[in-house]
């Protein structure tokens, strides 16, 4: 049975545990001027991506390949009584039909003890559960055949919200009931004491809607058997942890019989951390037919079945003294992961972001007949930020403090959940430099217009629970006789620029020209182990291993040079393809001479990720600033400019750094203003099952006036490069900053997201009374 579920729950946490032990030999971050690190450079794989040469999984088209299509339950809750595939089997081009009764298809799924479901479970708990599948010569024929499968369903009553899920006699999703258990409570200090000490106590309820990942490349696998060996091309966030290991367990075959490849990946945001039923379905049908099978989910399927950011119903109570000192924070959150178990936790920032002695977080969840929650870019954090950062503004207003000053007042250099100092926190600089560059004071002081269009500015701070990276990662760095370098890593580049920063760091360490460094990645038969690209840990996890590998190559060549030239190693430097003496540049050997003298044609350094420093917490931070225009006649909100100040340790490539912040903030705007899953109360089915009705930001919503402030904290402690993760903190505070800007514009607070025009009009009407 696949345990990728457990993998998911684990991915947030290993780096929180603080591994310890001395590194093999200390390798410190560069302190002086760097040659390529930190520059604004185009990506090393840009040519492939713009020319069409890049082969994404969706682009894998093999000779003799069949196309799979999956029949999915159209009901929110139903029991499959019978499946008749006889007509489908006779349809043109159909080569295989698969149901739960097919040999080898009775596979438990979704973890749990006992497992919560099966590959094809007759008990369908949400709209979109897998019922049967077809493989045919064209996708058209496969869909024809899917439509010809006759299924008899017994429709069951369904639950979509907490109230109906927990009612006595409610339809049960699982034997254990609809609750995921007692509330999980985390306490620090005594909140009642904290509220008693406060001059101002406020309480507000906040709500955030279900947000769906919508990667532009839908979930897709191509599976090919050669005897008992299996090759899987898969659009995934991790060829090893997300696919190879769980698939080997699921199919009961050794790891070494499976090869997983994902050279280019069309987006994921957390939704591609699993094998996915479609992959196993493709593997089973490929075995039945002896032909490769491609299973690509339609856009509708991807909206229903492969994950979302769960909703959050948060009540936050906060106490503050007149001087701005926080005395207590108390958060309760109720959420639903949908039909199967998943984390819905949001509380971290309440416990961690600001200095506060008395905190309590209580969270619970219940099952509903809806698609499952998965990790989604900074799981829990944008939701928490929505509540916490709006509350911070509410408190600041009550005590007459500027929102930026109020946050600075409660700044902390110590991780309160771990009782450890951070290796670095640039939150203070994010706030101060961000505010200065944005023109915060001036914008706040600006007189409000009287017309129908109101302008406002807002800001929010945030952090990400992960972003440290930790072992294990292995990177292979290989230098050829002419000084050319190849980096090999199993890590994905999910769009963040992993390949580019890996090459940049190798080039820096080896004094090589960047264009002379090539990277091969994400192929379990060819590249060494890397963890999933998730948790903003690929940069800080992988890149120190790459540097270690490059450093080993350099050390070997310099040792050979010292021996050949009779000069001490400390006097030698490696530059492109030559080792030479600093004091006497005439003393030199080419890399080729050194290698040939030792009977080799290449030198390979295997770099492992060193452990993180003991007794330190490692996290990235951010402060985001937003200006909006609100049309009080229509309720429309336009984001006119934004600024993101992010601190993620050392910047390796300024171009990809900025791009991450732009993108994270863009998604944050969607979270605040547009994105929500709409379920029909009458049928339990999703109403906005397309990209016209499930709204994401477009080029018309993204402000052209968008700036990034990169804060470098000179962190020489977190790892040998000094970098932390960026992908997730880039989206955490944006939504709350938008909400705060709207409040600044119209004087009423939108606590329920997304803030649609209707919401604004209702709030304004309420205000008018």
């Amino acid at each position, binding site marked *: 049975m696949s345990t990728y579920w457990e993998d998911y729950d684990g991915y947030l946490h290993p780096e929180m545990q603080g591994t310890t032990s001395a590194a093999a030999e200390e390798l410190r971050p560069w302190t002086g001027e760097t040659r390529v690190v930190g520059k604004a450079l185009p990506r090393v794989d840009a040519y492939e991506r713009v020319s069409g040469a890049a082969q994404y999984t969706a682009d894998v088209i093999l000779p003799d390949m069949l196309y799979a299509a999956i029949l999915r339950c159209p009901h929110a809750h139903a029991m499959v009584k019978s499946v008749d595939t006889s007509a489908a089997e006779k349809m043109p081009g159909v080569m295989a039909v698969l149901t739960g009764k097919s040999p080898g298809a009775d596979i438990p799924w979704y973890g749990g003890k006992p497992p919560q479901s099966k590959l094809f479970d007759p008990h369908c708990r949400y709209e979109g559960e897998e019922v049967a599948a077809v493989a045919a010569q064209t996708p*058209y024929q496969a869909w024809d055949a899917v439509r010809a499968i006759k299924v008899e369903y017994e429709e069951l009553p369904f639950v979509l919200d907490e109230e109906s899920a927990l009612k006595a006699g409610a339809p049960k999703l699982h034997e254990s009931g609809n609750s995921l258990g007692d509330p999980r409570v985390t306490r620090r200090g005594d909140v009642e004491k904290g509220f008693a000490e406060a001059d101002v106590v406020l309480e507000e309820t906040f709500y955030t809607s279900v947000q769906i990942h919508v990667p532009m490349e*839908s979930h897709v696998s191509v599976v090919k058997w050669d005897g008992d060996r299996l090759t899987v091309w898969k659009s995934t966030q991790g060829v090893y942890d997300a696919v190879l290991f769980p698939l080997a367990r699921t199919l009961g075959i050794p790891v070494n019989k499976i090869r997983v490849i994902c050279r280019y990946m069309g987006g994921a945001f957390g939704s591609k951390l699993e094998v996915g039923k479609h992959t196993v379905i493709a593997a089973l049908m490929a075995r039945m037919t002896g032909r490769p099978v491609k299973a690509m989910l339609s856009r509708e399927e991807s909206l229903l079945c492969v994950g979302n950011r769960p909703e959050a119903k948060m009540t936050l109570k906060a106490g503050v003294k007149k001087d701005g000192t926080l005395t207590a924070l108390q958060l309760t959150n109720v959420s639903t992961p949908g039909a199967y178990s998943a984390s819905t936790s949001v509380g971290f920032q309440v416990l961690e972001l600001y200095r506060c002695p008395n905190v309590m977080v209580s969270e619970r969840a219940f099952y509903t007949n809806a698609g499952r929650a998965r990790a989604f870019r900074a799981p829990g954090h944008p939701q928490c930020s929505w509540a916490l950062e709006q509350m911070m503004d509410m408190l600041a207003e009550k005590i007459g403090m500027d929102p930026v000053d109020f946050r600075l007042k409660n700044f902390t250099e110590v991780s309160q959940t771990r009782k450890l100092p951070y290796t670095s926190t640039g939150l203070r600089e994010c706030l101060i430099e961000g505010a200065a560059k944005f023109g915060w004071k001036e914008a706040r002081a600006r007189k409000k217009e009287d017309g129908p269009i109101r302008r406002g500015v807002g800001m929010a701070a945030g952090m990400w629970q992960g972003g440290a990276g930790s072992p294990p990662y292995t990177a292979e760095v290989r230098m050829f006789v002419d000084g050319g370098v190849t980096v090999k890593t199993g890590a994905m580049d999910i769009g963040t620029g992993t390949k580019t920063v890996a090459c940049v760091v190798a080039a820096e360490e080896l004094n090589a020209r960047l264009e002379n460094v090539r990277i091969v990645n994400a192929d379990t038969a060819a590249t060494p182990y890397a963890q999933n690209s998730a948790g903003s840990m690929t940069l800080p996890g992988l890149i120190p291993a790459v540097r270690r590998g490059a450093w080993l190559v350099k050390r070997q060549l310099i040792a050979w040079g010292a021996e050949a030239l009779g000069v001490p190693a400390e006097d030698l430097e490696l530059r492109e393809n030559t080792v030479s003496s600093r004091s006497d540049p005439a003393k030199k050997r080419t890399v080729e001479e050194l290698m040939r003298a030792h009977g080799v044609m290449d030198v390979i350094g295997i770099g492992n990720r060193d452990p993180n420093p003991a007794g330190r917490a490692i996290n990235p931070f951010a402060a985001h600033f937003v200006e909006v225009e609100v049309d009080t006649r229509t309720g429309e909100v336009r984001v006119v400019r934004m600024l993101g100040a992010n601190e993620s340790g050392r910047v390796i490539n300024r171009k990809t750094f900025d791009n991450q912040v732009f993108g994270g903030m863009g*998604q944050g705007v969607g979270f605040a203003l547009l994105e929500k899953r709409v379920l029909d109360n009458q049928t339990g089915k999703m109403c906005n099952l397309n990209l016209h009705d499930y709204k994401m930001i477009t080029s018309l919503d993204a402000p052209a006036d968008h700036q990034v402030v990169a804060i470098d904290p000179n962190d020489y402690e977190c790892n040998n490069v000094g970098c932390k993760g960026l992908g997730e903190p880039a989206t955490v505070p944006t939504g709350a900053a938008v909400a705060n800007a709207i409040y600044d514009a119209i004087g009423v607070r939108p606590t329920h997201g997304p803030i649609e025009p209707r919401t604004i009009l209702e709030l304004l009407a309420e205000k008018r009374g």
Partner: protein
Amino acid sequence: MPEDHESKCCHPHHGISRRGFLSSVGAGTVAAVSMRGAPPAPAQEILAGAGAVTVSLRINGTARKVLVEPRWTLLYVVRDLLGLTGTKVGCERGECGACTVLIDGRPRYACMTLAVEAEGHEITTLEGLMDGEKLGPVQQAFVEEDAFQCGYCTPGQIMAVEGLLRRNPNPTIEEIRKGLSGNLCRCSAYKHIFNAAAKAAELKRRKEGGAQ
């Protein structure tokens, strides 16, 4: 909805509507086909699907004869039969723009265009912007401005910019935003895409200036 976006959702101006075509298809016999990169599936099995027809498509300046079912989209034919996978499949319902190609120089959604409708029109895909192994100016601008993250919507974005610049060589930022409004980028790399569109206009002007 902006004009550009709307027009992309529609069928090519001179094409046959889906409904009109389907009603006129007969069960005619089919000539031999030339399919580069196509799966070597027996033609008989494909024919059994529905009355397939031969269409002659002019793609990136080369005429190609293809055996297609009338319901097959240009997107499917270009990618899965001809192996031109620069054009991406994103939603197959005219919403995301990943499949944008130029038809007679204007950006169109290949997922909303039947292959049979595209006959007689000049089709340009991402591959058609290349000059041998050299990138075209819009592609080069996307590289220099880091105008993508995962890169999957990028071919569509590039084709949208190419189409925009062919009718408007000097677009304002608002015209750029409007011209790209039919192409979703979930990574939200819009800021860099705007920069790339402006840079592309400059590179194109420079190229044309140099050629004169």
